């Protein structure tokens, strides 16, 4: 309960940053970039396309055992006892472990450690992990699972957050020290300015209830982990994770090992989207089983198990009340949000803050209050999915903005322009905004979609809708408090002409390794093929916190420039000395080094590096990045504080079949301010992928738990991710605002472009048929009901027929 009034943006000077953390927006040599800004192929593109890339499940080690996990068939139950003796007796079984073998609780957020690697006293959803078996092969392990006898005392279960609040006596996480806590996972109430007065002063106040249904990530690669313990006791874990560093820490905690005795490696990854940013039971289980058996152990989850691991987007019930003056200026926003957290905390503390903290741009409102409550239920745990915590409130608010625009007879794009927060400013909740290309984004989608000529003028059934958003480029909230850098880099450069970059950053397909390569090639004037990237191996690479909150390009990128510039100075200095010319005459670019004033004096990069190695001895450098001190001066004020924010606008063109309720999506124009596009092909890929994912969860994907507490369809047949034929034309329109603190001015592109997709569909449907869709998902059945409730399209036959005509 962090209620506190924040007195508007603080007056303060420009935050001073270490020179280490800021490198300017320009090219290192002259005024032209050599590599940055070009559509370079991903470092692992060919390996993935040809099948050579090594994913975790491709790892086969001599003597390797296969492990499986026993899961709870009950949504909520106390474990009275577990008898593993019959399973252990099965030939081929090497070990069986239960919660008692790893009793220490953990959680990705250190303040909420409420998970056990395997359940200790209770199970809290159908699919919760209870025991693990290592055997010679998967079939034997599966057979052993069936021989484990668990005596459960079945408890009443909650599947609805309102029920969980109303009946705290059925408590999912017992809190004897705080008996009033009930099933509340986290409550945040923050108020900035006098919202009630501001709404009173408004000419129009609109109020609406919105619903977000919840969705999951559905990465194509299921979770997988392999563990091995060396004869001298070093544990190595290969895992399909996006957070090697946090997995490293969690393993040390739960297994009671020194961090220096653990090595965590992330092999090539087949998608994550936030679904691999918690430590998972399989990582602890294979590690423990490898320690117990002395043999390598692998566990690969089935698709069904990935649905139980979940950590997907939280279902939310959102209530918004917003005021606007006749001149189109917003006066205040008042939000109340109920968040269904599922069975564990995961990132829930952050989710609860994000549900309010990330709404305060690009549209400015001078007063704001949000009151968010995350509640435990007996369902697979929710967590961070691409656009963590902010996609749901963004949906509600951007639909309400459309309603407000109509109420004051303003074009919705114009409404957003009129309330734009500006650049180099602060938000109502005290977040510092630097670059802001939102107006450029609005211009681009307006132009590309033919908005002025077409919106409101298309035939009935077809419409255009706009929405905007803002997202963080990393966060200065570093999960566990520490004074060390958030990103580190190490570069080795030697006489072969090769630069090797060591980064703790997790490339999860977003292309962060490619970004590292591009930056090093740019700074050292190398051909990108002469830069190799070694990533996400805790033995080899400096610490990076991981691939979450869209932080990697910004933070690792800056750290890479930091390290590469140190090396560049060594090389240019050595060559300048050898040629007896001033250092600023030495140009390095794409494998060549020459004197700017005498082009005939030219050598290869390799020769230049050899000159430097002869002069300075072995060449290497480290680089780091840390955020400046940011955030509002109140409890929770650093959550949502980012060194830079990206901005996005979408226009969606939708057609509604009023007979079926089906929304046909024809076009989605995505304009995104990514600061500088370091690799426009990768940026466009992230924009398209984000928009696809947002559209998908709006119209098709339903993560539903049925009346028995079972996932309604834990398969890729029943959880329907759109295919290529279901995907509209996606038009990526890159807007470059050049952020003063981003690497060469870059900001994030991986999550922001998802947000506006969902509200833009709703707003397009309103333009098409005049019906507001405030509740997701927009499945045809739900849309048809909404159309009929509004009297649009043919009436329901049930209403047409006389009583008694139906059975």
């Amino acid at each position, binding site marked *: 309960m962090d209620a506190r009034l924040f007195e508007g943006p603080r007056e303060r000077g420009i935050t001073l940053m270490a020179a280490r953390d800021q490198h300017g927006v320009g090219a290192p040599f002259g005024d032209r970039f050599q590599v940055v800004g070009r559509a370079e192929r991903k470092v692992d593109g060919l390996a993935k396309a040809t099948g050579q890339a090594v994913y975790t499940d491709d790892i086969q080690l001599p003597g390797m055992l296969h492990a499986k996990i026993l*899961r709870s*068939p*009950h949504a909520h139950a106390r474990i009275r006892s577990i008898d593993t003796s019959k399973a252990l007796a099965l030939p081929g079984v090497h070990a069986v472990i239960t919660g008692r073998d790893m009793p220490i609780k953990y959680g990705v957020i250190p303040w909420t450690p409420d998970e056990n690697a395997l359940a200790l006293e209770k199970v809290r959803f*159908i699919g919760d992990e209870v025991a693990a078996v290592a055997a010679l092969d*998967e*079939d034997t392990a*599966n057979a052993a699972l069936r021989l484990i006898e668990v005596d459960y005392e079945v408890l009443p279960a909650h599947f609805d957050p309102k029920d969980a609040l109303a009946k705290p006596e059925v408590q999912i996480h017992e809190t004897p020290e705080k008996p009033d806590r009930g099933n509340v996972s986290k409550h945040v109430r923050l108020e900035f300015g006098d919202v009630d007065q501001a709404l009173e002063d408004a000419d129009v106040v609109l109020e609406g209830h919105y619903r977000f249904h919840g969705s999951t990530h559905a990465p194509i690669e*299921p979770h997988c982990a392999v563990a091995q313990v060396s004869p001298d006791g070093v544990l190595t874990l290969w895992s399909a994770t996006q957070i090697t560093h946090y997995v490293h820490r969690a393993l040390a905690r739960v297994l009671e090992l020194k961090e220096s005795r653990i090595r965590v490696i992330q092999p090539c990854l087949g998608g994550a989207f936030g679904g691999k940013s918690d430590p998972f039971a399989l990582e602890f289980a294979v590690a423990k089983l490898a320690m117990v058996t002395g043999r390598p152990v692998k566990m*690969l989850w*089935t*698709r*069904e198990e990935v649905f139980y691991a979940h950590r997907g987007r939280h279902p939310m019930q959102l209530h918004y009340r917003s005021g606007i003056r006749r001149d189109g200026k917003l006066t205040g926003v008042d939000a109340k949000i109920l968040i269904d957290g599922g069975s564990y905390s995961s990132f829930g503390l952050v989710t609860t803050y994000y549900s309010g903290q990330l709404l305060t741009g690009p549209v400015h409102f001078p007063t704001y209050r949000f009151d968010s409550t995350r509640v435990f239920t007996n369902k697979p745990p929710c967590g961070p999915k691409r656009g963590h915590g902010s996609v749901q409130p963004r949906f509600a608010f951007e639909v309400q903005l459309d309603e407000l625009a109509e109420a004051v007879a303003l074009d919705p794009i114009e409404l957003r322009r009129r309330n734009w927060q500006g650049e180099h400013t602060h938000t109502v909740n005290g977040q510092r905004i630097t670059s802001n290309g939102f107006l450029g984004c609005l211009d681009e989608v307006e132009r590309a979609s033919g908005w002025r000529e077409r919106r409101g003028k298309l035939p009935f059934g077809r419409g255009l809708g706009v929405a905007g958003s803002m997202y963080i480029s990393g966060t200065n909230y570093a999960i566990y408090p520490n004074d060390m850098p958030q990103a580190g880099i190490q570069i080795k450069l030697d006489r072969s002409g090769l630069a090797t970059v060591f980064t703790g950053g997790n490339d999860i397909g977003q292309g962060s390794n490619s970004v590292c390569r591009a930056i090093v090639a740019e700074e050292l004037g190398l051909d990108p093929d002469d830069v190799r990237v070694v990533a996400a191996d805790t033995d080899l690479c400096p610490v990076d916190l991981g691939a979450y909150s869209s932080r990697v390009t910004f933070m690792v990128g800056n750290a890479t420039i930091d390290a590469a510039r140190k090396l560049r100075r060594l090389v240019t200095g050595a060559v300048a000395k050898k040629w007896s010319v001033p250092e600023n005459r030495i140009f390095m670019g794409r494998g060549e080094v020459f004197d700017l004033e005498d082009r005939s004096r030219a050598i290869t990069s390799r020769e230049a590096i050899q000159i430097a190695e002869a002069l300075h001895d072995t060449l290497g450098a480290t680089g780091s990045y840390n955020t400046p001190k940011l955030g509002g001066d109140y409890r929770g004020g650093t959550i949502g504080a980012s060194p830079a924010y990206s901005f996005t606008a979408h226009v969606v063109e939708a057609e509604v*079949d009023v*007979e*079926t*309720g*089906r929304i*046909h999506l024809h076009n989605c124009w995505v304009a995104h301010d990514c600061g500088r596009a370091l690799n426009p092909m990768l940026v466009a890929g992230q924009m398209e992928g984000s928009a696809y994912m947002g559209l998908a969860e709006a119209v*098709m994907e339903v993560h539903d738990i049925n009346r*028995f507490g*079972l*996932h*309604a*369809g*834990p*398969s890729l*047949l*029943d959880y*329907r991710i*759109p*295919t290529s*034929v*279901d995907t509209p034309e996606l038009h990526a329109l890159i807007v470059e605002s050049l952020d003063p603190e981003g690497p060469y001015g870059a900001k994030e592109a991986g999550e922001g472009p998802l947000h506006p997709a969902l509200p833009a569909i709703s707003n397009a449907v309103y333009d098409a048929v005049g019906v507001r869709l405030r509740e997701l998902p927009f*499945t*045809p*059945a*739900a849309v*048809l009901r909404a159309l009929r409730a509004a009297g649009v399209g043919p009436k*329901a*036959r049930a209403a047409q027929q006389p009583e008694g*005509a*139906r*059975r």
Partner: protein
Amino acid sequence: MLRLPKTRVAKPTTVAQAVALLVEHGEVAMPIAGGTDLLPNMKHGLFEPEVLVALGGIKELQRFELQTDGTLILGAGVSLDRIAADERVQRTAPALAQAAGLVAGPQLRRMGTLGGNVMLDTRCQWYNQTHFWRQALGYCLKKDGTVCHVVAGGKKCVAAASNDTAPTLMTLQATLVFEGRSGRREVAIDDLWHTDGIHNKKLGTDEILVEVRVPPRATGHRGAYGKLRERGSIDYPMLGVAARLDVGRDGAVEGADLVLVALQARPVRVRRAAELLIGVPSSGDNFAEAVAAVAEAAYAQAHPMPNIPGDHEWRREMVPVYVARTLHAAATGTGPVHHV
């Protein structure tokens, strides 16, 4: 990945050998063609055969002929993509070609066979799940359990026939040729079905579907298939509508048939379709009126239950919409009716 249970695979090269294998192994044997349905079902523990009799190597099952009298003979082992792409089928049995082209997605149509689709097991959201899931549920009537969950506490299995091609073959009055221990028999496809979700076909465990025979039709034959599903690919039908119109030289409808699938345990004929359509011109306002009446009759007759995933009330609302669209598509030769 889910594990496929260990099973022996027998590879006969003739239908007779295949039948002999089924007779020899009895209930623990099952025939397998493309395997696109059986293998996932085995991974889910829904079928536990000890012997799979693989039909892929039997040449007789690959027959694909348009006979001089106009009879179309389709071996049960012909892949769905070949049927969909074949000009002879498109011309003489357009609804069948369209339905075959809308089964699942491209990879599955390449492996999946016509016979496999006709003989497809019924589907249900409480049944087509993993063993763990079904165990947590307490199983269901169709497999390992004692109650049906479609309607709480139900005592009758209402799993849905989900084979796209079956209703089109019914409108085409196709016959099926089975071979079993007592030789060959021909069955009108209409007579194949039981209204029982557990076993919806009248079939001996030793019988193999050898071929499908589609009788010749007059030149005025028109047909179409309409498929309701969420995605534009992969998904099973939430509703399938097969329509046949026989249009005379004067443009009037002389014969008509309409069969729906994915509502209940067997494909269902809309009883009043022929009555309402015969004698009506096949275009214009009169046709539109008659089609609307058929759509209403179909709606009155159709009562989908929450057996397969998806909102069953919406599926019912879609019956008249898809019936009308499919009949118009048949009349104008613009099928299939599909949202992408």
